[in-house]
């Protein structure tokens, strides 16, 4: 009865261990990818995985790099740093040159630290950590590392984009954020940039909520209304964002919602038609940008994904990451992480939408264009079948978000 199950599990595990320890010939360039693929945050990792696989297939069809194809190797980290570190060990065992991670600044911090230590202690088996979405500013300031490359604008930059997108008529804003490192840094950065770029705006309220615990946001909406705010600026994600916007819409509050993450998987469905022309999000890519600027090739690229998957291509911006990898590997002429890292910093690439991007040398933070999308009817590509989609209401160029940094990077000896 029970032995059968045990035997199956055991053989499966032995297989996994054997796979973990076996060094395969490097016919492909392996990119390890770790994110939560099960548990309460599974949709994040799952959505990213689908989109990345499509992008990699596209890049490989264009020849990959140095004649080799890229290969994505997913690892489920179940939102725990220890599992991400085990994934890192598995990746280094197989001599993979890259490990990528998008979700969770706590996991990112653990990975940066572990990658630094590993690369220092094992100079012949190094690995580069590609950060596709962990946006805490500290990761390229106090915790910056030569081996870490971030491909999404950090909190400070996103906050600046959000502040720049505030219309002139908005003079009273309310801030709500989640009570942990990320939310607290959003709070800090938004206030800094408001003071710097929009001194006419008054912050009438400033709240922190416990992460994932608040089920009913109506009391907050009451407070916001009582304070007379015209716009709500929030870095909330997941249920904390969905429920907040729902509560505001239900109460008939005349508010505009400026968010970081309303465009990600699940957001549009949760917001619904009630959010028409009220919800804004800062995003690296909007599906309606390509038709708006008339870029036919990019539009075809995103449309093909939508037809294949019946799923929004909100993370198409990941293509820029792989174009950087492609360029860096070709420039370095080898798959050696140290050479690739030196080749990748200070690289400039025109991304597939036609905008200029650059990987900064001093802190390994990429700067790129960013958009502010408004959730409204009447757009060419709607989001998650709701009938409403993200229309671009503002475009911020890369050079406008080239913020200073405090990184004191330690470089290894040049190779």
């Amino acid at each position, binding site marked *: 009865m029970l032995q059968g199950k045990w035997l199956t599990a055991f053989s499966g595990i032995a297989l996994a261990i054997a796979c973990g320890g076996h060094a395969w010939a490097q016919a492909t360039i392996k990119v390890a990818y770790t994110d939560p693929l099960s548990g309460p945050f599974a949709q994040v990792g799952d959505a990213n995985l689908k989109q990345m696989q499509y992008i990699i297939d596209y890049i490989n069809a264009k020849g990959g790099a140095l004649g080799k194809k890229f290969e994505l190797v997913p690892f489920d980290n179940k939102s725990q740093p220890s599992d991400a570190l085990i994934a890192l060990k598995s990746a280094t065992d197989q001599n993979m040159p890259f490990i990528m991670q998008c979700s969770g600044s*706590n996991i990112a911090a*653990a990975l940066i*630290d572990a990658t630094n230590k590993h690369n220092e202690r094992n100079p012949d088996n190094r690995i580069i950590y590609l950060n596709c979405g962990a946006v805490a500013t500290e990761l390229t300031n106090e915790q910056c590392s030569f081996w870490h490359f971030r491909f999404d604008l950090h909190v400070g930059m996103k906050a600046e984009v959000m502040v720049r997108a505030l219309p002139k008529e908005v003079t009273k804003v309310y801030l709500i954020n989640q009570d942990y490192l990320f939310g607290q840094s959003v709070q800090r950065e938004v206030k800094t940039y408001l003071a710097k770029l929009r001194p006419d705006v008054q912050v009438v309220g400033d709240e922190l909520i416990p992460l994932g615990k608040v089920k009913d946001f109506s009391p907050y909406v009451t407070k916001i209304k009582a304070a007379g705010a015209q716009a709500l600026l929030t870095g909330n994600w997941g249920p904390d964002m969905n429920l907040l916007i729902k509560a505001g819409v239900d109460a008939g509050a005349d508010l505009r919602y400026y968010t970081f993450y309303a465009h990600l998987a699940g957001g549009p469905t949760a917001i619904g038609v009630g959010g028409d022309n009220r919800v804004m999000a800062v995003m690296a890519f909007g599906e309606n940008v390509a038709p708006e600027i008339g870029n036919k090739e990019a539009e075809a690229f995103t449309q093909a994904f939508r037809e294949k998957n019946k799923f929004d291509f909100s993370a198409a911006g990941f293509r820029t990451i792989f174009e950087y990898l492609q360029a860096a590997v070709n420039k370095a002429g080898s798959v050696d992480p140290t050479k690739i890292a030196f080749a990748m910093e200070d690289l400039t690439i025109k991304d597939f939408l036609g905008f200029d991007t650059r990987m900064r040398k001093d802190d390994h933070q990429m700067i790129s264009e960013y958009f502010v999308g408004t959730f409204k009817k009447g757009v060419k590509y709607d989001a998650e079948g709701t009938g409403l989609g993200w229309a671009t209401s503002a475009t911020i160029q890369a050079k406008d978000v080239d913020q200073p940094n405090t990184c004191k990077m330690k470089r290894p000896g040049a190779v």
Partner: protein
Amino acid sequence: MSMLRRHWPWLLVLVILLAFPFLFYDWSKARHSGFVLTLMSEIGVMAIFALSYNMLMGQAGLLSFGHAVLFGMGAYCAAHVVNLVKSGTLWLPTELVPLAGGLGGLFFGYVFGWLVTKQRATAFAMITMGLGELVSAAALMFMGFFGGEGGINIDRVMDTSLLGVKYTSPWQVYCLVLVWAFIAAALMRLQTQTPLGSIANATRDNFERAQFVGYDPRMVRLMQFALSGFFAGIGGGLYVLIYEIVTFDTVSAGKSANALLAVYIGGAGGFFGPILGTIVVVLLQSGVSLLSNAWLLYVGVLFIVMVMYAPGGLIGLIFMHMPIWRAGRLRELLLPYARAFPPALLVMLGFVLMVELASFTTIGAAQGKKFSIGGNIIDTTAPLPWVVATAALVLGALWLRREAHGFRERWDELIEGARQQGAMS
């Protein structure tokens, strides 16, 4: 010399555990598999954690939903101590860092325990649940002690080793973990033989009678709680050395649930049960999750099967064979087992195939993976795989039922025979 003869199983296990990683040693690159060593270190740490949980659940009958709080607080304490050593304020050999974690766990075990052990049974469980929620929320909010979301990170290369070891490689850390695991396990084993251990068992079995004997059950609970915190803290200290970072997930409900799973699956109350359970759970989590994203479902099903048919855990199942083994008739079970094995395997494979097909159709397909067994790609939209899976499941279940019946008869026969021979304990 006689001690060697008495404790040879322990030494044998130590030797096996030291040799095991070499199976995965990469001879061409002259290095160990970091993955295997980290996984085994993880098993070591979780085993200590599970054993400390067993002190509460198995020995004292206290079901706690917040045991990870003690583990995590011990880890945070150890991390702060290491950072203090690095900055020169303290001196502590690297080998004794887990002890710092243990003392942290002991302190918090006493402080929280004072509140928590005022009640017993279900009320105790609910208080620990509330406490767990509070501490894990606090761990996110407060930067000073918990370091917020990013946690506290350390550099384990402290250059204060008693043996002159640098602890740069996973192999050195693994050896340290092994040594501490043995020490902790031995100590916990000894604790069950102390008066406190015996009275804890007594309060578990018959609460009122223990009161009448004259011991204050509240003090027993408190001391047991604090001591289990000590050992959990040792586990926490080792965790910090392995991963060099401690974040809020070490105090979360998920970690506590892991301990509960491990102890229950392995078998509560005994000693080897929790260790066995830990191995199964860690391999399921870190091994099977690499192969399938439905691994949580398997955990759930395994759980339910264990709870319904084997409440004594895996160890309980093994020990059920003791009377027959003592009667010397164990090999007569070989044939019934062999007969029951194929249908069981069939049911298992049918179930796994069914789940994987369903999961793939809704989730996995879009992940761009191809569903393949042994290199053959299988088309999940065709009816054939589904039919095969269903047939395996149904036919296997019917066949198993018949075999189980025969097995049961044989088993009862053997137990009866053992009883007559006086081999029942």
